[in-house]
């Protein structure tokens, strides 16, 4: 039996209104690559942050080599040999490789001066070990994504880490680079390091990982040896829940085609995307992060400019050039990041809800407060926003209610097409169900809905049809009754419909 280097027991982490993690056990052993599997929002990132001292657990304990420890800061975790390599490399792009690697634990001479000579030498050794052909004095900004990742790994090695956590390390790498990464991972494993490998991609997990632990909705679901499991088993653990409760999809009468997209392309993001959308339909868009789904929606709404393709709205070819025009044509777009793109936090609820239509709500530039009030109340109440009154600022509301404000704002424009990008990301279960119920009702009334989601159950539970994208291309289109989680996941990871992975 391999030695247990890090063990988490009964870990819980609560945020206001959300249980991000609850009753979580996680055990890491030396010389093992351990896959941490779960959907987006399952709590993987939160767990990583607890392991590296960024967050403090609300409850539970962490054991390092059998001794109970507390990581109050990421520095504590680093001292204890636990290091994370993040999804988006967090580096100082204007500094050199050496400076980045030794940031926070500079080597000093006896005099107290920084010993750059020694640091540069160490860096050269590390880069050599990783077989990287980079000078220690190169600026980070001059490196490619893959090379940056390698430097991150070198940084982890520089502190002599025993536990190396890699958060979706391959998401930005080419196939060849992935192979190099595997080589390094195996090398580290042979040296007796413990590696936590977070990934969405089953081929990777089966290629490189020895052991896996599955999370769902912030809870520990199960674990096992990769070699003794199948993709099907793991997918079931990832998804498995009663779909009907959370997703009160009503039967809706599918009407005529309202939107027809043909060969839509945006170089670097997606190409040749075609689909159509009917009145009363909920069209789900599934794919991994970076599959290009949001970019397709942004392009339809006129935020990004398409390079090719045709968008036909209700028979009229739409050359959308800006969001204002798209709005006028009856398209509403609820973006993914509501803090960045959705609600205006310093603004009152009322002002937020009426913002998209202040043109219509004003006479000669002067706002009609009565009509504003009517709109606010109608849609605010419809969305069941919980707030003291409509004059409080959006930042006083919980995340779920903020999302409702954004939904209300767009519904108030009386759209023909509602595009929802990750409508329930990061909100609590109760609000989630309310949003689902609402989406279902709106579709029932004849609204055409596009729902982009990375949550498989949501996609399966809510959609009439599902468009699945992988690396900028539509890989599959399934009807509600023919879709199941295996098929969808496989299509989303670039494996053709029905293909089975061994």
């Amino acid at each position: 039996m391999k030695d247990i280097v890090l063990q988490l027991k009964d870990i819980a982490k609560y945020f206001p209104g959300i249980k991000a993690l609850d009753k979580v056990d996680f055990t890491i052993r030396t010389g093992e690559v351990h896959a941490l599997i779960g959907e987006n929002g399952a709590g993987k990132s939160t767990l990583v942050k607890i392991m590296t001292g960024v967050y403090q657990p609300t409850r539970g304990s962490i054991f390092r080599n059998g001794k109970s420890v507390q990581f109050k800061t990421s520095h504590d975790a680093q001292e204890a040999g636990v290091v994370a390599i993040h999804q988006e490399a967090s580096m100082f792009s204007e500094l050199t490789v050496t400076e980045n690697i030794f940031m926070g634990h500079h080597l000093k001479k006896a005099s107290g001066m920084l010993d750059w000579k020694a640091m540069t030498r160490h860096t050269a050794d590390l880069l050599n070990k990783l077989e990287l052909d980079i000078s220690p004095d190169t600026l980070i900004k001059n490196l490619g994504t893959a090379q940056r990742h390698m430097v991150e790994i070198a940084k982890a090695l520089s502190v002599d880490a025993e536990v190396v956590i890699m958060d979706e390390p391959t998401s930005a790498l080419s196939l060849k680079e992935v192979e190099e990464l595997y080589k390094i991972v195996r090398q580290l494993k042979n040296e007796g390091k413990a590696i936590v490998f977070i990934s969405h991609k089953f081929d990777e997990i089966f290629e490189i990982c020895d052991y896996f632990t599955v999370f769902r909705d912030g809870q520990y679901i199960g674990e096992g040896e990769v070699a003794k499991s199948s993709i099907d088993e793991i997918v079931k653990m990832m998804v498995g829940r009663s779909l009907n409760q959370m997703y009160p999809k009503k039967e809706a009468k599918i009407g005529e085609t309202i939107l027809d997209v043909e060969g839509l392309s945006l170089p670097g993001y997606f190409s040749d995307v075609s689909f159509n959308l009917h009145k009363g339909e909920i069209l789900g868009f599934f794919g991994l992060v970076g599959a290009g789904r949001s970019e397709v929606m942004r392009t339809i709404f006129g935020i990004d400019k398409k390079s090719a393709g045709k968008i036909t709205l209700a028979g009229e070819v739409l050359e959308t050039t800006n969001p204002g025009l798209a709005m006028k044509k009856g398209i509403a777009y609820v973006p993914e990041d509501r803090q960045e793109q959705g609600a205006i936090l310093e603004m009152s609820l009322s002002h937020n809800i009426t913002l998209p239509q202040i043109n219509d709500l004003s006479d000669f530039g002067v706002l009609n407060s009565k009509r504003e009030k009517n709109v606010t109340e109608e849609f605010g109440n419809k969305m069941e926003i919980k707030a003291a009154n409509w004059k409080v600022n959006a930042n006083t509301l919980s995340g779920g209610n903020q999302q409702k404000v954004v939904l209300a704002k767009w519904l108030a424009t009386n759209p023909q097409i509602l595009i929802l990008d990750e409508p329930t990301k990061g909100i609590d279960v109760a609000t989630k169900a309310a949003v689902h119920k609402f989406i279902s009702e709106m579709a029932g009334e004849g609204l055409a809905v596009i729902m982009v989601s990375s949550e498989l159950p949501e996609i399966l539970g809510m959609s009439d049809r599902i468009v699945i994208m992988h690396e900028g291309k539509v890989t599959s289109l399934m009807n509600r009754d023919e879709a199941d989680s295996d098929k969808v996941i496989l299509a989303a990871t670039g494996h053709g419909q029905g293909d089975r992975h061994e």
Partner: protein
Amino acid sequence: MNKKLEKILQNRELNLVLLTAVLLIAVTLRAPSFLALKNIERIVNDTAILIMVASGQLLVILTGGIDLSVGATIAFSGMAVSMLNQYNPSMPVVVLILLGVLIGTLLGAFNGACVAFGKVPPVITTLGTMSIFRGFTFVLSKGQWVTAHEMTEAYMNIPKGKMLLLPNLTIWAIVVFIIMFYFIRYTRSGREIYAVGGNKTAAHFVGVSEKKVNFMVFTIAGALCGLAGVMWTARYAAAVNETALGFELQTVAACVLGGVSLAGGAGTLTGVVMGALFLGIINNALPVVNLSPFFQMGIQGFVVLAAIVANVLMEQRNDKKLLAGRRR
């Protein structure tokens, strides 16, 4: 603390009222005549120009920008109008005021165009135009002043005299306040300013044009500076090249004191007026409290900083209470 007072303190402007009261009491303890009605009227009148210009500054700061050229804009438009008055004494005062506003508007529009269409950050734009407009003032005046004997009585009377028991200048400020209050609160454009300042991306998504808003706020700020230029030169019966030197900092200070977020998106006109009055009180109190002139500037800075810190602290405490209340 009792409930009622707590409720009052949840409002940032009222925090400032409280701080202003403390300041007034402190000054009055040293100079009892300070609280006399006549003196209060004098302070408000003295602050009138600051209120006008700071309300323009408010718009710019609400979008997340800053206008450092307000002092220079005041100087230029004030000089231009004073010279017009000097060389065409027959030109009606109404025309002079309108021309002042027009000149300010043009200078502001230049700032706005650089920021909105040239994509130059506001700080850099207005840092440049601060020198440019001041330089233009020198060029225009050839370094000469326009003083009382070169101005017409009618011109000097614009801010002087009384109407409805209040000095004219104060009335001008009240009119500006009412128009700006209405504009910010009840017009589409006013709402768009908050939207752009609060969240550029979200504003873009709902079709609000950031360019239009940026151009508009600088133009309005310029127009108000133009009006202020007329008022300033008429009030002191002197148009000099150093008019309103450093005034931009006072207007920014008035905004910050009034609770306007320099990051944009948050702040009210009433807050700014309160902030301006607070500064006005300090400006008028310092001469009467018998302090060494060497201390005056330091004390002014200290009081302003202390007021801002106190205001922020009070607000943070209120926020905590608000959050606690929500969780319950």
